[in-house]
């Protein structure tokens, strides 16, 4: 029983743009949470009108925000999501080495990383998705 790791690259484990949570920099927090809920991912990518990545908002960001925020929840939900986003997230290039990328996620203790090429968002690496692909390739 083994996995042919050499057969994997970032592109064939990536999640495409139409299957991940993406919002614009003008969208409010509730839009981000709704998209994350819909796709079942713990990350929402925030892009500008040129599809350039401006930041990411994760489950962890939202947890920390909930612990810190002391106003009414309804006042939080209408704030711009970008205000609470990580502006310089860990990103992966579509041409990155597959194992190196997994090591990076492990080292940073994160589950997801946007795939960015020349500043533009092109997809998402999500560890569950990667593990699923690896398991299904076991011979």
């Amino acid at each position, binding site marked *: 029983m083994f996995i042919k790791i050499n057969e994997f690259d970032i592109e064939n484990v990536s999640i495409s743009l139409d299957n991940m949570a993406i919002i614009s920099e003008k969208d*409010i927090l509730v839009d981000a949470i709704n998209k994350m809920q819909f796709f079942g991912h713990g990350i929402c990518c925030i892009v500008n009108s040129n599809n350039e990545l401006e930041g990411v908002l994760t489950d962890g960001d939202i947890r920390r925000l909930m612990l810190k925020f002391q106003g*009414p929840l*309804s*006042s939080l939900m*209408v*704030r711009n999501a970008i205000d609470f986003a990580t502006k310089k997230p860990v990103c992966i290039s579509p041409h990155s080495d597959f194992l190196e990328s997994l090591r990076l996620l492990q080292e940073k203790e994160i589950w997801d990383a946007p795939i960015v090429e020349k500043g533009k968002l092109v997809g998402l690496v999500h560890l569950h998705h990667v593990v699923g692909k690896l398991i299904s390739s076991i011979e």
Partner: protein
Amino acid sequence: MAKKIHIGYGDVNKVSIGDKEPLAFIGGPCAIENREHALMMADIIGEICDKLKIQWIYKSCFDKDCRSAPGSFHGCGIDKGLDILAEVRDIYKVPVVSDFSDAAWAKATGEVCDLIQVPAYLCRQTSILRAAAETKRPVHLKKGQFMSPWNMKNSVLKLESFGCDQILLTDRGTFMGYNMLVNDMTCFPIMRRTGYPVCFDATHSIQLPTSMGNVSGGQREFIPYLVRSAVACGINALFMEVHNDPKNALSDPNTVLDVRYLENIISQAQKVHQTYQDIVEQFGENNVHQD
């Protein structure tokens, strides 16, 4: 920092509202009573504003659709009202604003008015917001008495989705139980988060809505306190309805400010506004515990 909005088309005196701009005043009789009265009020208020060098917008409405009683004065009607506002504009070169309560009235209102007002009770009605945005005029959006300041973001997003990017957000008090309004001064920094300038409506804030059975009461003695507080919280414009003879005013007789107090109140507001701007200049924006 709030974006600047620009009010006035044609040859009227232009009004700019925003941070680092002088305080603006929006005022006039609540309802257009008749041509002579409208012109007289424009003359009196204009003279005071000229003396105090405050940029101003004449406000008066042609239809008061939210009266408590069916027998109350409902307004002079859209055709007559807009003709009178056009004449005020033309004679005094002052930008004018009126609200509209029916989406079908928006187009005609926008053809005359420099600023188009969305009534507080209708501030979340999509059809009204769409109609206001489609006039292409700047929109004066009043916070409903039933709305939280942060939920006004949704109305702003609606206006923006219909192409409007010139919005003034105004607080006119918030319901506390029945027949009672309170002013939460944090509503100004909260509404400023939308990126648009904010305004305080002093004369409606002291209203006791429909507290007299079928007419609203008011506590006008509190106007100076609330004005000074709101200006100190960084408002960009002050709104007050004024009348030469409040007890005989056809609309809001218990809340309109007697015009004889206008110079005093505006002078106080200007002084506090200058102090506020000096404070921001010296100590920076109010960014305490924002992290």
